[in-house]
């Protein structure tokens, strides 16, 4: 799975990536060194349309999976998780719907990863 990249600097101090088989590898290596990013996935508490929590007898899930649309700056992930921990998502949930727009003033949204009905 994937390539084994090596990163070095040449005689002029320019960054040099080897081992990549396509252009994505070089972009990844550059980003991984200067501005590492990760896709963040998490689950938020589900609430029913009336605001209550699905009970133990319910077939509905108690958590709704969410994800960032694209990779998020790594050093700010703890801050993002803090925002997600307190969040609830009202059922029905629709895959792809935005639950946190431009999270922490980045260009990254947090979206629902699975459609879940409310009954």
């Amino acid at each position, binding site marked *: *799975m*994937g390539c084994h990249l090596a990163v070095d600097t040449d005689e002029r101090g320019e960054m040099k990536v080897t081992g990549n088989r396509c252009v994505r590898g070089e972009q990844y290596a550059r980003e991984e060194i200067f501005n590492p990013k*990760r896709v963040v996935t998490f689950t938020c508490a589900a609430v029913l349309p009336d605001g209550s929590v699905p009970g133990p007898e319910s077939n509905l899930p108690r958590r709704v*999976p969410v*994800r960032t649309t694209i990779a998020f700056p790594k050093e700010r992930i703890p801050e993002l998780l803090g925002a997600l921990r307190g969040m609830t998502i009202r059922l029905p949930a629709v895959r792809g719907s935005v639950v946190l727009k431009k999270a922490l003033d980045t260009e990254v949204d947090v979206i629902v990863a699975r*459609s879940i009905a409310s009954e």
Partner: protein
Amino acid sequence: MKQLTFDAVVIGGGAAGMAAALELDARGHSVLILEREDTLGGILMQCIHNGFGLIEFNEELTGPEFAQRFEEEVGSRHIQASLRTTVLDIREEGGLKAVYCVSPAQGMMRVESRAIILAMGCRERNRGNIRIPGTRPAGIYTAGLAQRLVNIEGYIPGRDVVIIGSGDIGLIMARRMSWSGCKVHAVIEILPYPSGLTRNIVQCLNDFGIPLHLSHLVTDIYGEDRVEGIEVTPIESGALMHEKAFKIACDTVLLSVGLVPENELSRNAGIEIQPTTNGPWVDSALMTTMPGVFACGNVLHVHDLVDYVAEEARRAGANAAAWLSGYRPAREIRAKTGSNIRYVMPMRINPERENRLYMRSLVVKNDARLEVRLDGNVVKSRKLAHVQPSEMLSLTLIPEDLAAAGRDSTVEIALV
């Protein structure tokens, strides 16, 4: 007892079961999926992390997203799925297959068919399987169970965690627990190399500064009511170095020590199981030793990517459809393992068709070459920059590669 009849029955509604059912349906056969859980999707539903679908959809999806794409396809084709349904038995009755199953809505059911696809997935190995000494306190979980508790039930199983085994689920849980505010103190691996994918070592351990102790064994678990800590002993040249043993305090131990194909049903039905994979023996069409019963996905052999599961399952579904229409291979030749190969899947090759093979390396090696030998002569070879046991290998043999094959020919796959 309710009686149903379909051309084919698929046991298990995860990625493998859905992919196989779609293929059968596309070829005009009626198919019923039997699924134990409340929803289709199988284990993908609790795998909320991303990295699925790079081969299948050419994008990075989370497990639930990957599952939902298949689920929507199954729904749009009106393929029937019986949820909350547990299969109890598979039998041959009157020249047909009978699947006995039970669900709260229907009670006991008997589903008759001409073909069955086994797609039950796999189970986690647990503490009993690897015989860790020590007390038996609360706080010891398999990584997948912890994953279900955190991602689906919404519970945190503990605060100070040690992970035994460096399988992918354990690595994923190291990150998940860290993101949930827990402290993961270490990952302990008995082998000298990690069992999980490289990307998971980087993103789930290195990102959080979690130490990975390779060539180390957990030799004791302490605690009366709740886990209080573990003892870790280094292994040098195959021997336990007891004088170098150390303790790590923790309240939770997660086990990620391998997966075993779930073949209780297959065994009870008298289907032959292979010791190298713990899955059914299958021919070039992925058909087991019970004619008309096919296997695919993790019940056949443990895969590291769901994309490979889907590919294999589609093949099983297409082969089952061909079988239902009366196709039988004219001849098959044996596939066997050569140097440094643990297993080759499947174990038979049809020289008149395209054959997709999966195999696993026994070794970690750079600049390796994968060689296909037909009766000792190399007919295909491929350079591989890096191989390791945790990353499955694949290759495709076309009829031209096997043109010289005779009745008793053997194909050997070797890593040199």
